[in-house]
């Protein structure tokens, strides 16, 4: 593991769009992505994900701050950076009139491959992304998933060491989404460093080694998906009852095994019981309910999803103390937690 080496770094990056409301753009964005890892950049619309990618891929100039990619300064060594990155944008940025093969040959040529090499590479990639059968057809007739795969292939004609993937699966059906995920995973296995932005937490959970959560142009939490989840409060048992009477009767029983405050959802007759020891607590609460003659409709052991972490961090009031513990997770890896510094 070469954790120490960061392939993508950003420090205090700021960008405001003229005329745009406060909180859009970037307001002191910090990021560190280790070589050969996948960093998931998560956030709601307008949090600054795309702005961050556009600045790091030299498409947009920052107002202030510093950023480097593959060891080169984004601001002053743009061409060097562009020689080492691939960009997969929000929409499949391929030529719709040309065939899939013509697209890849063109991007190969623009990446300075000689004609023969560009053709060979195009065929390799078409094969690899299961597009060989459609290679001679105009892209306009491709399905959404095929286009995205072609888009991904187009950014890989020269196997860039760093790949930016901006919301790669927005608008794709589940099967196509899985295809894209597989393709990204394979790249990482080959050593590519990937910065992935997404609104889908499942996607980040699947693909990312580390996740940075973005809110109003700043990273509010950073860590591994598991670390972020356990920081939110660990496991709990969720019990669903048939009616309010059962739920009421079960409350004192649940309270006995709970490691914290019960979470009650009255209308759904649901009780959330935070627990420290997962299975022991489950057995205890099930036995106690049985003895009391209460039969729950459902009883499950749960762990917070990234969705819940995300909503917790980006939903409630900004900057409350409740956010802070999560923001400190895994601060050990980075030199210091960026989110804490910028305020």
């Amino acid at each position, binding site marked *: 593991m070469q954790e120490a080496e960061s392939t993508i770094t950003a420090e205090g990056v700021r960008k405001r769009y003229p005329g745009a409301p406060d909180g859009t753009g970037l307001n002191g964005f910090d990021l560190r992505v280790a070589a050969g890892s996948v960093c998931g950049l998560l956030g709601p619309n307008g949090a600054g994900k795309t702005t961050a990618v556009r600045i790091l891929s030299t498409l947009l100039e920052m107002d202030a701050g510093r950023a480097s990619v593959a060891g080169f300064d984004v601001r002053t060594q743009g061409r060097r950076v562009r020689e080492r990155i691939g960009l997969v944008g929000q929409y499949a940025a*391929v030529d719709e009139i040309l065939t899939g093969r013509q697209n890849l040959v*063109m991007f190969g040529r623009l990446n300075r491959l000689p004609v023969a090499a560009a053709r060979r*590479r195009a065929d390799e990639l078409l094969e690899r992304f299961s597009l060989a059968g459609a290679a001679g057809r105009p892209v306009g007739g491709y399905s959404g998933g095929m286009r995205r795969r072609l888009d991904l292939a187009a950014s890989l004609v020269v196997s860039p060491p760093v790949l930016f993937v901006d919301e790669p699966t927005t608008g794709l059906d589940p099967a196509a989404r899985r295809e894209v995920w597989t393709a990204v995973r394979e790249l990482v296995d080959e050593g590519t460093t990937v910065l992935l932005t997404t609104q889908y937490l499942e996607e980040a959970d699947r693909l990312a080694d580390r996740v940075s959560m973005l809110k109003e142009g700043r990273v509010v939490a950073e860590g591994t998906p598991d670390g972020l989840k356990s920081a939110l409060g660990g496991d709990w048992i969720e019990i669903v009852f048939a009616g309010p009477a059962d739920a009421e009767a079960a409350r004192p029983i649940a309270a006995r095994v709970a490691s914290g405050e019960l979470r009650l959802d009255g209308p759904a007759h649901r009780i959330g019981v935070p627990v420290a020891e997962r299975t022991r607590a489950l057995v205890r609460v099930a036995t106690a309910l049985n003895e009391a003659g209460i039969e729950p409709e459902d009883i499950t052991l749960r762990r917070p999803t990234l969705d819940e972490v995300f909503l917790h961090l980006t939903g409630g009031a900004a900057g409350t103390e409740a956010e802070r513990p999560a923001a400190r997770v895994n601060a050990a890896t980075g030199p210091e937690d960026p989110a804490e510094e910028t305020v």
Partner: protein
Amino acid sequence: MNATTRRLPSGAPLPRLGRALADAWTITLRDLNHWALRPGTVIVGWLFPVMTVLMFGGLFGGAISVPGGGGYFEFLMPGMFTLTMLFGLETTMTAVTTDAARGVTDRFRSLPMSSSAVVLGRCAADMLNSVGGLAVMIGAGLLLGWSWHGGPGAALAAVGLLLLLRFALLWVGIFIGLAAGGPEAVTSVQILVWPVGFLSGVFVDPATMPAWLGAIAAWNPLSATAAAARELFGNPGHGGGSWIEQHAMLMAAGWPVLLVAVFLPLSARTFRRLKG
């Protein structure tokens, strides 16, 4: 992955200009491939001015008396050549704005290619398209009884001035295409192409218009090119007494140069600052 396909180091032997030209050619080739895959679009684009000339020549030919005598087609054709150059603007705008809206421009900008190659390639492809369109129009004119009466040198000079206008309009098109921010906005600009075309000396002598309208028409860059082309082809023209009409030849070169001087830097600036 195959190590030989890794990006070449940037100190590649090819000098900068050579690389820019190679990239520009790749972009031009892209458009040529478009034509091959969708020949209909190009052909319709070339035949549309022919249809216009038939329509106007047929409709108004009998009613319009040409200054200095002669058939209306003799007067109309150089104007229609000029208008064909203006129609080319739409091709440029549409291509540029579609690329920007689809993210293709961003992809180009994220590549280590020469940034001027994107516009150079566009430029070459559109000029080729317009040369084709002009050839079709000249052919149609000859079939309709139009002809040039000066020497071949003068005729070529007229073609040169027409293409110079097209070159200038290319930069107008690139700028509008980049600044418009979407195909919808371009549609509204396209509507303006017609009044700009009509309010000129393309179809009639500006002297026949109300004075203020005639003055605007005379100062329309299209009028200068049309008048100069008429003169060089040896076709009947409208003299006109104003300074601008007296200096059609000068202005047929001056207007395009001015347009390029304004819109080339504007386009370059917009391209660099694209936000998408």
